């Protein structure tokens, strides 16, 4: 029994180290006063300096770009989740013509290759005059997030007992009140997880962002961070500092919500 425990822990520690090392390297590079790649075996900088962060924060428009990222990701989450909630509720509760087709269609949109969408989306956003505007990104991100959100939320709604809604109806609630006062409060874990995913997607996306945004003051952070990695030379220090700034807030939220993650993601799948 003890031997087995030892083996299990050894395996887990090894996996954890493999998992952590690339991440720790980024941390180490961020605090080294150099732009070259860290080649030491242990991710501990010889000299700790905040130069990279100072450089990063003093870049023109940096805080504007941070703001852009927050705005885009926040709005995307709000809009995407709002629309997904109503749609997922309908898909879960009502039997209407086109329901199955609609659900399938949502899955099919996940198969559209990004390369096929890039040019038309560029044209669409340009025609709306939304290039270099956060609104353009919000529009695209929030709609592309919808299919996943709808499926995830639908799975959760399916597990809520119907009697609660019927009971509220008997209590005099209209359909909207039922949805707002009963269904949504009960679905908080699933909504939190869904929101986290739309936020992550919007916060991390850079291909569309790099395509739509050509002016530095309109950049989102991923575009900035990515621009440190050039074809011929890479400012690894700046890149690492930027990567930290981008990743840390997300990781914080991620870990705060990780308990919900397990339940909120699979409720639908398990119950079928």
């Amino acid at each position, binding site marked *: 029994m003890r031997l087995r425990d030892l083996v299990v822990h050894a395996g887990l520690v090894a996996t954890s180290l493999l*998992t952590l090392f690339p991440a720790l390297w980024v941390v180490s590079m961020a605090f080294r006063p150099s732009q070259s790649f*860290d*080649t030491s075996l242990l991710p501990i900088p010889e000299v700790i300096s905040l130069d990279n962060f100072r450089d990063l924060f003093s870049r023109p428009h940096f805080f504007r770009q941070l703001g852009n990222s927050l705005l885009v990701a926040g709005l995307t989450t709000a809009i995407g989740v709002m629309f997904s909630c109503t*749609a997922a509720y309908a898909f879960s509760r009502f039997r209407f013509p086109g329901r199955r087709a609609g659900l399938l269609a949502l899955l099919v949109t996940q198969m559209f*290759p990004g390369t096929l969408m890039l040019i038309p989306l560029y*044209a669409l956003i340009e025609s709306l005059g939304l290039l270099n*505007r956060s609104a353009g990104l919000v529009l695209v991100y929030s709609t592309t997030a919808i299919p996943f959100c709808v499926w995830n939320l639908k799975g959760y709604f399916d597990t809520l007992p119907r009697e609660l809604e019927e009971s509220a109806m008997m209590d005099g609630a209209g359909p909207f009140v039922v949805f707002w006062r009963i269904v949504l409060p009960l679905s908080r874990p699933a909504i939190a997880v869904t929101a986290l995913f739309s936020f992550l997607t919007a916060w991390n996306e850079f291909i569309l962002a790099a395509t739509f945004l050509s002016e530095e003051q309109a950049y989102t952070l991923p575009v900035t961070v990515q621009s440190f990695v050039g074809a011929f030379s890479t400012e690894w220090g700046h890149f690492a500092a930027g*990567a930290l700034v981008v990743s840390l807030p997300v990781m914080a939220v991620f870990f705060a919500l990780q308990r919900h993650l397990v339940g909120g993601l*699979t409720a639908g799948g398990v119950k079928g």
Partner: protein
Amino acid sequence: MKNVAALGPCLAVIFATAFGAMVVDRYASHRALENGQAFALHLAAYLAQEGDVAIAQEGDVAIAQLRAHPAVQSAALVKVVAADARYPFLRRLEVVAHTDPSRVGTRLLASSEDDKRVADLVHIGGVTALSDRRFQAGVGSAVVTSMPITRVGLPVFGLAIGALAALLFWLDLVRKQPTSRVRPLIGALLCVGTLFTLLGWRIVAIDRLEGAARSTADPIAATFLLAVVVLLPLVGTGVLGSMRGVGPSPHRRAYAYVAPALVGLSLLVVLPFLFGVALAFTSEVDGQTTFVGLDHFIHILSSTGRRLTEPLSFYFTAAVTIAWTGINVALHLAIGLALALVLSDPLLRFRGLYRVILIVPWAVPSYITALVWKGMFNQQYGLINHLLLKFGLEPVAWFSGFFTAFVANVTTNTWLGFPFMMVTALGALQSIPKDLYEAARIDGASAWQQFRHVTLPLLRPALIPAVLLGTVWTFNMFNVIYLVSGGAPNHATDILVTEAYRWAFEQDRYGYAAAYSVLIFLLLLVWGLFAQRLTRADES
């Protein structure tokens, strides 16, 4: 019958407005072209004398001449430069000379109203257009005059009407018993809004992207037609569904709830998709778009000019893609499941800590992961070669051989993807009742038999959707391939999506890339249908 009769006026409104919109559009574009062309001619004559190089020096002279023209409010000489070497279709307009001297040397900002009009005229006047490669990095001119109508306004106007109608419609549907008087009006508004948007978008966006190619409108007409075919029935169902019956029909409410998401998806996902599909049947040479039918598809599928086993052939890339997807999903599943099984033991110490550490890769943005791993695999300074040296091994040039480059890609993607499977499996494991294991143990099942006959079958329903999604995501995993190996050596490790991306943005062959992408989509669709049949058989 009464309801069908209500469609009459509704249709009349739609057609009248559509006709009106077309007239306005004709007039607007005519005027804009006239204005633009007048100055274009003027300037072209000037340019012909002076040549490109002289322009920057002689800019002020040109401006002075332009200013003399009665219709000119302000004028600018604009240079078109590529904004980003990786995205050649992104171009930036720089002011070479301007009626306002302080503006010389600045960039045109789409956020400034004045600059937007200059930019508009640059496109519409035909002097230079975004996708017209002859002017890719040349010199253009632009003049701000009073324009009859901003053409951008048309789709925005349409969207506004549509949004308003949709909002009214939605509110009405959610709230009360149907008010049959208002319904057709709202429906009509919705149709009108949609039409305006489509019309406007067709005129503005596609013209711009494809250059002034109004005459060869095949792909455009095709998109338009497809869009109408898809969108109008949608709107129509909504309208009809809302008018049928008086009682509290659950269907009406269902449509109302789905509508916002559906409309958004139609406009921003389905419509661009259809446009992309239409693009696959066209080819653009010197800014001229022509309809080429199935040429691209034939070219790709017959692997013209290449042996089937050469890296750039479609079949080779497809095989690489399938291997890539298969290996990755299998690794994700195996690692994720194994970790989940170990971590689901409630007696395990530091369980919470392990779990937190092991989902780190999920929280890191994938492009950062990819770039870090690219650095780690670097031949000169990469950590991995450094390690190999420490152990007395030869350093490996990871990206100069197919196999090593592929391994580098797979390693990166495995690191990045196993936490999703792990979390999914953990969730599913929690829901398996403990007494099942007790029953199995009483029946004399070994640990492996318990896993094989209790755990796996009960995990299936939760894992199948996750595997399906994972497959689609991996199949289209652009970031890792593009950023880690970048297709090296010589496109061998490219998967279908990165290959399509190269055609579009490194070769500027949008049509060809679109055809490539359509094939990718079809492959996935076939696989999806197959998988769906599999799961359905599994359920029954």
